[in-house]
């Protein structure tokens, strides 16, 4: 075999992220876009509030991780996705499913463990899927979904279908080793995947500062030549613009992008959370100053694109959807015991 002269390694520019992407300006939303974002985020908010209530009433057992506060992330990204693009995420997954247009009834009934749930009640809050809506799950093991997202993206590239897989995980999962194995493969093979790190500041009860040596997660891909940037994840327009850029980059064959969404969860990690790791003031400040839904509402009112009454009508419509889902989820029967033995292997 002929030996090839080795090229001198290219000098990297100090401080610059290889690939050179940076956060774009927030998107300019049309009236329709603002109102769509408002409605979609409100649906998630009201759904999660109802899930919290049903948990308190004993209809939902075990674990239930609410997405309240983070609605702009999945809403802005889904506005930038094309038909056929996939979503895979971890266990705080209810919002992602609603954003992927999955039925509120099926999601809520899964939470209550009923047969009309997306996994017939067998999966529960953290474990549900919809092939039809290209939702590859809710995964209960922190970080375990990231490699799967890379694999889905590989299949996209292999099939040359022009689709991108949005792979979500949190600041906590970002410290799992398999995330970096996935980064390496995704970049090496130039896979059409967008890694969305939802940095809500706390991995359960442990703050980012207490768990992470490099707290700028957007730069965690530097060693793998994956460009990344931080985004105001409380502003749906910023999320949308970031997603347009990242999805476009991945779709064009340039490989993965990391978008770190700076966001915040208002509720506890799950339903039994003593919340001693942060102050009430911190939560209140985010709610009153940065709330993603209130931001849209203020703009819509200011632009006179809708009146308070018209926005209330949207809320009413959303509440009706959620009430219907809750009603269904409380009254739908449990799966038959025999269901536990179905879908384990392909039945002969």
């Amino acid at each position, binding site marked *: 075999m002929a030996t090839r002269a080795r090229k001198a390694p290219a000098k990297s520019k100090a401080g610059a992220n290889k690939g050179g992407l940076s956060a774009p300006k927030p998107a300019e939303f049309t009236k329709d876009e603002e109102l769509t974002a408002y409605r979609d985020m409100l649906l998630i908010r009201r759904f999660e509030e109802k899930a919290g209530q049903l948990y308190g009433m004993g209809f939902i057992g075990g674990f239930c991780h609410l997405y309240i506060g983070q609605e702009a992330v999945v809403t802005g990204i889904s506005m930038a996705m094309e038909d056929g693009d996939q979503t895979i995420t971890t266990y705080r997954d209810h919002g992602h499913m609603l954003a992927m247009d999955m039925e509120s009834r099926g999601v809520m009934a899964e939470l209550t463990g009923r047969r009309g749930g997306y996994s017939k009640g067998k999966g529960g809050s953290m474990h549900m899927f919809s092939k039809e809506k290209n939702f590859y799950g809710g995964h209960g093991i*922190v*970080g375990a979904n990231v490699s799967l997202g890379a694999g889905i993206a590989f299949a996209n590239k292999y099939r040359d279908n022009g689709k991108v897989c949005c792979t979500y995980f949190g600041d*906590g999962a970002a410290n799992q080793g398999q995330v970096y194995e996935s980064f390496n493969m995704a970049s090496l093979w130039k896979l059409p995947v967008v890694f969305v790190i939802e940095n809500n500041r706390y991995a359960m009860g442990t703050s980012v500062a207490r768990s992470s040596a490099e707290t700028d997660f957007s730069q965690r891909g530097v060693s793998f030549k994956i460009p990344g940037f931080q985004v105001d994840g409380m502003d749906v327009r910023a999320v949308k613009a970031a997603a347009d850029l990242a999805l476009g980059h991945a779709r064009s064959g340039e490989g993965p992008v990391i978008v770190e969404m700076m966001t915040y969860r208002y509720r506890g990690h799950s339903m039994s959370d003593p919340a001693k790791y942060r102050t009430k003031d911190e939560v209140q400040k985010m709610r009153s100053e940065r709330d993603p839904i209130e931001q849209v509402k203020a703009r819509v009112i200011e632009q006179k694109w809708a009146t308070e009454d018209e926005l209330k009508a949207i809320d009413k419509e959303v509440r009706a959807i959620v009430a219907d889902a809750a009603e269904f989820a409380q009254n739908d029967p449990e799966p038959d015991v025999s269901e536990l033995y179905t879908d384990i292997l392909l039945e002969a």
Partner: protein
Amino acid sequence: MAQMTMIEAIQSAHDVAMDRDERVVVFGEDVGYFGGVFRCTAGLQEKYGSHRCFDAPINESGIVGAAIGMAAYGLKPVVEIQFADYMYPAYDQIVSEAARIRHRSNGDFTCPLVIRMPTGGGIFGGQTHSQSPEALLTHVSGLKVVIPSNPRDAKGLLMAAIDDPDPVIVLEPKRLYNGPFDGHHDRPVVPWKKHALGDVDDGHFSIPLGEAAIYRPGSDLTVLTYGTMVYVAEAAANETGLDVEIMDLRTLLPLDMDAIETSVAKTGRCVIIHEATRTSGFGAELSAVVQETCFYALEAPVTRVCGWDTPYPHAQEWAYFPGPDRVAAAFRAVMEA
């Protein structure tokens, strides 16, 4: 003596061990500042400092790997895997490194490491927060595996595990943290604070690894079980009126063969109960050793009552869970055989 929950007993074992031995360090996800999701390490960081009790990032493989390195260099790490279901990323480290380093180094390096894992179901945790993976650990030579069923044993076994020179996995049945759950999910559980087994010695004491306990003596049949199923067996014994001898194995690896042999030779009947799935579960090993050592004393086939061979379910949890009714049916079946 103090009246403790299982959580407090585990916390106390950490506290005593850290106080006695500077080499003991405690870490894991949410373990330090937060005090553990189940509060088993509450107050330790305040008392001993964040250099001895601290938070780890969410990286189970890294947690166990780092702990093995610490142990090989003379520390005594006690780590928590937040749920036993999260151990799989660390499984390579547990099997290929922790369990093997003594053998591989001809005894030059050892691994005095304790890995605690809340295990088992009964909390509506679904498939990634309810599993009982003990058989994946008992299959590994070079490990010890214990599973306490009450506060006193939880402290005594954890102290013994910390004192032990080899890697010990401590499986903590999380449904027992606050009281002895007997499978009757619709009835209240007596809290440990009002239970005789909640009486726990202060200070240091240990329960030797490898010793089973007779939880309840009897002559009709022997139950081999551990963890939550001790109390399910007791409920079934009471409900059938049979004179059941319930053996709480406490240590699964190494097994207390003498205790098993003595009991089954006496009763001639054996029912094995565990929450984990049936096929290749730890019950299969127990069944094999019973027939190897007690074959001529047996009056009935050795019977297993286990979780089903399905993923741990979200809905219909109580159908999957081997509750008192299924256990009682097995008792009757071996008596009629």
